[in-house]
């Protein structure tokens, strides 16, 4: 039964997490709190004074859902790089797991299920912070939680496949510096992508983050256009499915001799 196998992997992760959750949850709460207070309120007063907010809404309302999508991306990128490589080669947890009735597909399903749970956790905490700032004021805005999780998965799955090919952690700092940080800063969370040069706009829209930001923003501001929402979800799903499809043979090649 693949489902029970995956469940065992989730159980392992949950057990580890239960020893470390305090620090993680504190960071997941304070980071959005600080960012929304500083950029949303502080910088927001200047933006609202300079150009009357963005697209007719106060800056903090514009920023918060975008920042949520960007935060989900960051969390996903972290979860699927160092800890996974650790289990692959530093602690050899996967070798230990494969010595039991578990198969590679259970590991993969379990890890994807676990990272989904972590993303839902991060997004829920973020939603609470948004509510504290009065940004999330409709029940529909709760939909931003699964939307952000999907946005995170669109990064998590391909990165999982990438990590399966790595022998050291050297490439990870480049991934963060040359992919994750640029997307975080320029991918539409802080200011409209239309302000970028044309070539960069194209790059931004190829990434799943731009779609995650647009969907989250539409859900929180309550102005989702159904046709566009379908496109955003499709792009993010495509990245997720392609990542999982790639990860499975790569993990098998790495772990099964």
């Amino acid at each position, binding site marked *: 039964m693949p489902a029970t196998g995956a469940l065992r992997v989730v159980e392992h992760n949950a057990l580890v997490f239960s020893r470390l959750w305090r*620090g993680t949850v*504190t*960071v997941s709460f*304070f*980071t959005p709190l*600080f*960012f929304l*207070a*500083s*950029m949303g309120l*502080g*910088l927001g*007063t*200047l*933006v609202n004074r*300079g*150009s009357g907010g*963005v697209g007719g809404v106060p*800056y903090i309302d514009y920023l918060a859902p975008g920042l949520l999508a960007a935060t989900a991306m960051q969390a996903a990128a972290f979860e699927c790089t160092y800890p996974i490589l650790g289990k692959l080669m530093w602690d050899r947890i996967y070798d230990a797991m494969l010595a039991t009735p578990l198969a590679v597909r259970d590991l993969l399903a379990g890890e994807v299920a676990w990272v989904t749970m972590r993303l839902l956790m991060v997004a829920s905490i973020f939603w609470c912070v948004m509510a504290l700032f009065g940004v999330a004021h409709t029940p529909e805005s709760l939909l931003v939680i699964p939307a952000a999780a999907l946005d995170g998965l669109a990064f998590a799955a391909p990165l999982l496949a990438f990590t399966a090919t790595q022998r050291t952690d050297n490439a990870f*700092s*480049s991934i963060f*510096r*040359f992919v994750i*940080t*640029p997307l975080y*800063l*320029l991918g539409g969370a*802080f*200011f409209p992508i239309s*302000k*970028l040069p044309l070539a960069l706009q194209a790059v931004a829209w190829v990434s799943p983050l731009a779609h995650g930001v647009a969907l989250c923003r539409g859900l929180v501001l309550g102005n989702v256009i159904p046709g566009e929402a379908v496109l955003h979800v499709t792009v993010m799903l495509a990245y997720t499915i392609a990542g999982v499809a790639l990860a499975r043979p790569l993990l098998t090649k790495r772990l099964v001799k």
Partner: protein
Amino acid sequence: MSVRTLRFPTRSFRMIERNAMALRHHWMILFSGFVEPVLYLLGIGFGIGSLVRTIPLGGGRTVSYAVFVAPALMAASAMNGAIYESTFNLFWKLRYAKTFDAIVSTPVGIEDATLGEVIWAIGRGSLYSVGFVILMIALGLVTSPWAILAVPASILVGFAFAAMGAAVTTFVRQWQDLDIVQLALQPMFLFSATFFPVTVYPPALRLVVEWTPLYRGIDLVRGLTTGGVGPALLGDVAYLVVMGLIGVAIATLRLRRRLLK
């Protein structure tokens, strides 16, 4: 162990030499550290700048947002570079690599190692500062010839944070303790008049912010690159020098006690 037994650190160069050799195979890390502040400058300075337009600097002067935010990013990157070197990397050397245990068994003493580490962190930081000033000039974000002093000013910021970071690291027992360092740095980065002027704050909060070290560093660098030079900048310098010296003293004394049992 008292202060009197400290020797003048004449062999610090050996420590610097050791760090340079250790970095030889990881020079890419050194280079890519420059990417992040540049991205922040482009993203925040020009991206958000397109939403904010101009910022009042006081004295009736206004500047574009990119001119306002660039010196703050420069000071913040000096802080970040110095603090990561003197906390995470230093903790690694102390606890796992046992680098200092090996060093004190040679004629190089704790004083040399401490000063050498601080100079090393400063050197690494100043490399980034020089690059950043050149980029600011190229983008037309420097409005005063005083900006040339922004490089030593950033080095001073780096020194103050490197020294304090090393002092804090001597109290660290495990990696998780360093989360506290992160938790202190992030609000400092976000609230020290980095992205908006202190005039946005209510007066009481403004007073608190003005006493934090990164605010002092940003005030100093911003004064120099925008030409707002006055005696207040000397106050910033004094604050950072004192902070750095206290950090060096604590780090040296505590490392001696820890390593020379």
